[in-house]
C-alpha cells in the first residue's frame, strides 16, 4: 500500500487499458460472450471510476489508493478473463485444469494471474473495509490479521501442488475468499469501531452502525453466494447471484464517493464542480442499473426466445427507470445538501430584522442563519460602522480566516444609499458551488440587513439628538435663568449708582448753590463756592459718563469691536498688548456678536485686575474660517482649571454660548490664565474707507 505515486499511476493506467481491452474484446471479438458485460458495467466500471475519482482528489489517502487498486485489479481481472476467452475460442488454447495437480504451462500463465488478481481484489476489499475511515492501522492486531490475508495468494499454487483436487481448489481459491472477505472486512471494522469507542475515538466509533449494517449485509451475501455455488447458477439464482456479486463493489464505491463529499472522508476539501460529483455518482448508479437490466435480459434469454428476452430487457429497463430516477434524485439532494430557499431564509429573518434594535444580537443571528441556511463553511457578519455606530461582528461555522477573504467572496457590503453599513463575508459551501439563487439569497438578506442597520442608526441618532436637545434645553434654562439674574443684579447696581451716587451728588450741588445764594444775600464773595459747584458738576458728569458707558459703551455701537476693545485696553492700569488682525478694522459684525466679544474682553480684563495679579495682558482678535476668535491671556497667578465654576466665568460662558459661540479657559496655578472664545462670524457690513 505504500507504493509510490508513480506505481499507482501505472497501475491505474494499466487498469484503464485492461478495461478498454475487455470492453473492446467483449463487444467486438467475443460476440457470444456477453455474459460478463453487465459485470463490467455493474461493478468494475463504478469501482474503477470511484477509485480514480477518490485518488485524483486525495492521491496519498490509503482508502483512495485501495479503492483505485480494487478498481484496477477488477479491470485487470476482467481483462485476463476476456483474454483467456479469446485464446480458447479463437486460438484453440486448452485452459481447462486437470482433475489434480498443476495445469499446463500456458494454462498456468493465464489462470494463476487471474486467480491472484481475484484474490488480491478480495483481500484489498477486506483491507479497505477493515481500516475505515482513515485507512491506517490504528489498533494492535489489525496489521497482523490483515497482512496474514495476503498468505491466501499462495493457495492457487500451493493447493494443486499438495494434490488437492481442482474442484476443491476452485472453491477455496475462487469462491470462498470472494464470498467471505467483504464480510470479514466489515466484521473487522465492527471490531475496530468497538475498540475505538472503548478508546474514546469518536470519529471511528461513529461508523459502528454503518459497519454493523455492512457486516450483516456482506455476511448474508457470503452465505447466499455459498448457497449459489452449491446449487449451480442458472435462472433466477443467476440473477440473484449477479446482484449479490456486484453488491460490495457498488456499495463501497458509492459510499466512499458520497462520504468523501458529505463527511470529508478523504480529509481534503473537495472543491469541485458539483456536476462532476453528481456525474460520478450518476455513472456508478447508471452502470449498476444497466448491468442489472442486462442481467435480467440475459436471464430471461435462458428461458425465452430472443425476441421475448429483448422485450423483457426493454421492460426491465423501463421498470428500473423510476428506481434510477429516484436514485439520481437522492444523489442530487445528498450532494447539494438541504438548502433553504431565499424565501424561507427571509421569512426566518424577517421578524428578527424588523425588531432589530440590538445589533450585537442581530449580527450572530444573521451569521448563523446564513451559514446554516446556505450550508456554508463559515459566515461572518459585520454590522454598523461608518459614522457613529459601533461595529458588531457575528460569526458562525468554522473560524473564518484572519485577514481579508480572497477572491470574489471578499464580502458583500450592506449598502443603504451611498452608505456602507456593514459587511457579509462567507466561506465556500460545505458541498457544491454557489448558485445564482444562493447569491440572490445573500443579496436579499444584505438589503434587508442594511435596512435594519439603517433603522438602528436612525433610532440611535434620534436618541442622541433627543438627549442632546434635552441637555441643551436644560442648559438653556439654567443659562437663561443666570442671564436674567445677572441682568437683574446689574440693574440693581446701576440703580444704586444713580441713586446713591449721582443723585446724592446733585443734591449736594443744589445745597452748595443754596449756600452760594445765601452768601450772595449777605453780600459775601461766592466765587470760590461757584468754582466748587462747577468742579462737583464735572465730577457728576464723569460719574454719569461712566455709568452710561457701563450700561453700554457707545463706541462699540458707533465704531465697532476694534475701537471698543482698544479703548477698553487703554484704560487698563497694567501693560496690554493688542494684536488685532488688520482686516478687522473695516468690518462690522452683527450687533450681538460684537457685544458678546466686547463683553468677554471687558469681563476678562476686569477679572485680571480683580484676581490675577498680572503684570501683562495680551489681547488677540483674529478671524479664521468663518470664526471670530478672541483671546485674552495674562501672566498672573492663574487658578486650577477644575474650579472654573465662578459666577464671572459662568456668566461669560452663558453670554458666549447664547450667541452660538464657545469658550475655553486654560489656567494653571502660577502660569496665568488664557480665555479663548470662538464666535460664529456674522458680518454686518464692510466699511469702505
Amino acid at each position: 500500500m505504500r507504493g509510490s505515486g508513480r506505481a499507482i499511476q501505472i497501475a491505474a493506467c494499466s487498469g484503464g487499458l485492461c478495461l478498454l481491452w475487455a470492453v473492446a474484446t467483449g463487444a467486438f471479438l467475443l460476440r457470444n460472450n456477453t455474459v460478463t458485460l453487465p459485470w463490467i458495467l455493474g461493478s468494475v466500471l463504478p469501482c474503477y471510476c470511484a477509485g480514480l475519482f477518490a485518488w485524483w482528489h486525495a492521491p496519498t489517502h490509503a482508502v483512495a489508493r485501495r479503492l483505485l487498486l480494487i478498481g484496477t485489479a477488477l479491470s485487470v481481472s476482467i481483462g485476463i478473463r476476456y483474454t483467456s476467452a479469446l485464446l480458447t475460442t479463437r486460438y484453440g488454447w486448452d485452459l481447462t485444469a486437470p482433475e489434480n495437480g498443476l495445469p499446463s504451462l500456458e494454462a498456468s500463465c493465464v489462470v494463476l494471474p487471474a486467480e491472484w488478481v481475484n484474490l488480491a481484489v478480495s483481500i484489498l476489499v477486506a483491507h479497505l473495509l477493515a481500516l475505515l475511515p482513515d485507512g491506517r492501522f490504528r489498533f494492535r492486531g489489525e496489521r497482523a490479521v490483515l497482512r496474514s490475508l495476503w498468505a491466501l495468494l499462495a493457495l492457487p499454487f500451493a493447493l494443486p501442488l499438495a494434490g488437492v483436487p481442482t474442484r476443491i481448489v476452485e472453491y477455496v481459491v475462487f469462491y470462498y475468499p470472494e464470498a467471505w472477505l467483504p464480510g470479514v472486512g466489515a466484521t473487522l471494522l465492527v471490531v475496530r469501531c468497538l475498540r475505538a469507542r472503548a478508546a474514546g475515538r469518536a470519529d471511528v466509533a461513529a461508523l459502528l452502525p454503518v459497519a454493523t449494517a455492512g457486516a450483516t449485509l456482506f455476511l448474508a451475501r457470503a452465505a447466499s453466494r455459498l448457497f449459489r455455488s452449491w446449487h449451480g447458477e442458472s435462472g433466477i439464482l443467476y440473477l440473484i447471484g449477479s446482484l449479490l456479486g456486484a453488491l460490495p463493489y457498488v456499495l463501497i464505491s458509492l459510499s466512499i464517493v458520497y462520504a468523501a463529499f458529505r463527511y470529508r472522508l478523504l480529509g481534503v476539501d473537495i472543491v469541485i464542480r458539483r456536476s462532476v460529483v453528481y456525474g460520478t455518482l450518476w455513472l456508478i448508479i447508471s452502470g449498476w442499473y444497466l448491468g442489472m437490466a442486462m442481467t435480467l435480459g440475459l436471464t430471461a434469454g435462458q428461458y425465452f426466445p430472443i425476441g421475448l428476452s429483448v422485450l423483457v430487457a426493454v421492460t426491465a429497463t423501463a421498470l428500473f427507470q423510476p428506481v434510477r430516477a429516484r436514485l439520481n434524485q437522492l444523489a442530487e439532494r445528498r450532494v447539494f445538501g438541504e438548502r433553504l430557499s431565499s424565501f424561507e431564509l427571509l421569512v426566518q429573518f424577517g421578524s428578527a430584522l424588523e425588531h432589530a434594535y440590538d445589533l450585537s444580537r442581530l449580527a450572530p443571528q444573521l451569521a448563523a442563519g446564513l451559514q446554516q441556511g446556505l450550508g456554508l463553511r463559515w459566515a461572518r457578519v459585520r454590522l454598523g460602522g461608518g459614522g457613529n455606530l459601533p461595529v458588531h461582528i457575528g460569526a458562525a461555522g468554522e473560524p473564518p480566516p484572519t485577514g481579508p477573504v480572497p477572491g470574489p467572496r471578499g464580502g458583500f457590503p450592506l449598502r443603504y444609499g451611498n452608505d456602507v453599513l456593514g459587511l457579509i463575508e462567507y466561506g465556500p459551501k460545505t458541498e457544491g458551488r454557489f448558485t445564482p439563487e444562493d447569491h440572490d439569497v445573500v443579496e436579499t438578506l444584505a438589503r434587508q440587513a442594511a435596512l435594519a442597520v439603517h433603522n438602528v442608526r436612525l433610532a440611535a441618532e434620534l436618541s442622541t439628538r433627543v438627549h442632546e436637545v434635552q441637555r441643551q434645553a436644560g442648559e438653556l434654562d439654567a443659562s437663561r435663568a443666570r442671564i436674567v439674574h445677572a441682568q437683574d443684579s446689574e440693574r440693581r447696581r446701576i440703580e444704586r449708582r444713580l441713586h446713591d451716587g449721582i443723585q446724592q451728588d446733585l443734591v449736594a450741588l443744589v445745597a452748595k448753590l443754596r449756600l452760594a445764594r445765601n452768601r450772595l444775600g449777605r453780600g459775601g464773595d461766592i466765587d470760590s463756592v461757584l468754582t466748587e459747584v462747577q468742579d462737583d458738576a464735572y465730577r457728576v458728569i464723569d460719574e454719569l459718563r461712566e455709568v452710561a458707558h457701563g450700561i453700554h459703551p457707545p463706541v462699540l455701537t458707533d465704531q465697532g469691536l476694534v475701537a471698543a476693545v482698544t479703548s477698553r485696553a487703554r484704560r487698563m492700569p497694567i501693560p496690554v498688548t493688542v494684536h488685532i488682525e488688520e482686516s478687522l478694522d473695516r468690518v462690522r459684525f452683527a450687533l450681538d456678536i460684537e457685544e458678546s466679544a466686547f463683553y468677554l474682553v471687558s469681563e476678562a480684563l476686569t477679572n485680571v485686575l480683580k484676581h490675577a495679579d498680572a503684570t501683562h495682558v495680551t489681547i488677540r482678535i483674529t478671524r479664521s474660517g468663518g470664526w471670530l476668535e478672541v483671546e485674552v491671556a495674562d501672566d498672573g497667578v492663574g487658578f486650577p482649571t477644575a474650579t472654573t465654576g465662578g459666577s464671572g466665568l459662568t456668566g461669560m460662558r452663558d453670554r458666549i454660548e447664547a450667541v452660538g459661540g464657545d469658550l475655553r479657559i486654560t489656567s494653571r496655578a502660577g502660569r496665568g490664565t488664557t480665555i479663548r472664545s470662538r464666535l460664529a462670524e456674522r458680518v454686518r457690513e464692510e466699511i469702505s474707507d
Partner: protein
Amino acid sequence: MTEPPMRVVIAEDHYLVREGTRRLLEDTGDVAVVSAVGDAAELLDAVEELRPEAVIADIRMPPSHHTEGITAAHAIRAGHPGIGVVMLSQHADENYAFDLFQRGTDGLAYLLKERIGELDELLRALREVAAGRSVVDPRIVEVLMGSHTRAADAPLAALTRRELDVLRHMAEGKTNRAIAQALVLSESTIEKHVNSTFAKLGLAEEPQLHRRVSAVLAYLRHAPR
C-alpha cells in the same frame, strides 16, 4: 474791542445747552452767534448761507444720535476749508477724536462738552480752528498718556523717552516755548527733539503746521505704554 466778534454757528439738539452756550459766548463779546440750530442738516444749511468763521457742533444729533456731528464736520471742512469746527462731545473716548481727525486735523477741535463751563478753553479752541489749527481735549490726551497699551507695530517705538514727552505736550496743543517751560528745557532743545521726532515718524517733508498735527495724530493713534 479792536477786533470784530467772531461769527459762529452753534448746532446742538438740546435746547437748554444750545441757548446756554449761545448766551455764554455772546456774553464774552468776542463771539457773535449768527445761528443756533438743532440738527446736522440745519447746520449745513446755515453754514452754506451764513459762512461763519467757526462752528460749534454737538457730536450726537438727531435723527439717530450717533456721530452726525463728525459727518457734518467733515462735510464742512471739505466744502469750506476756511471754516473751523469745534466738536463738543459727551464721549471721553479717544476713538471719537480719531474718527474726527481721520481725514486731517486742520481746523478741527475735539472737546468734551463740559468745556462749555471753561469759557476760556472754548474761546481758545474757536480761535485755533478758525486759524486752521487743531485742538484736542486734555482729557483725551490724559487717557492716551496713561495708557499702557501697545500695538504690535507701534511706529512710536523708535522715539526716545524725551521725544515722547515733547510729543505729548505737543498733543496738548502747546507751542515749543510752552513745552520748553513745562519740561524746564531750552526752546532750541525742544526744537531739536521736535525735528528728530518728525524725522522718525517720516514727516520731514511735510509743511511745518501739518507736520505737527500729524505727529500728534500718530501719537494719539499709537499711544505708547
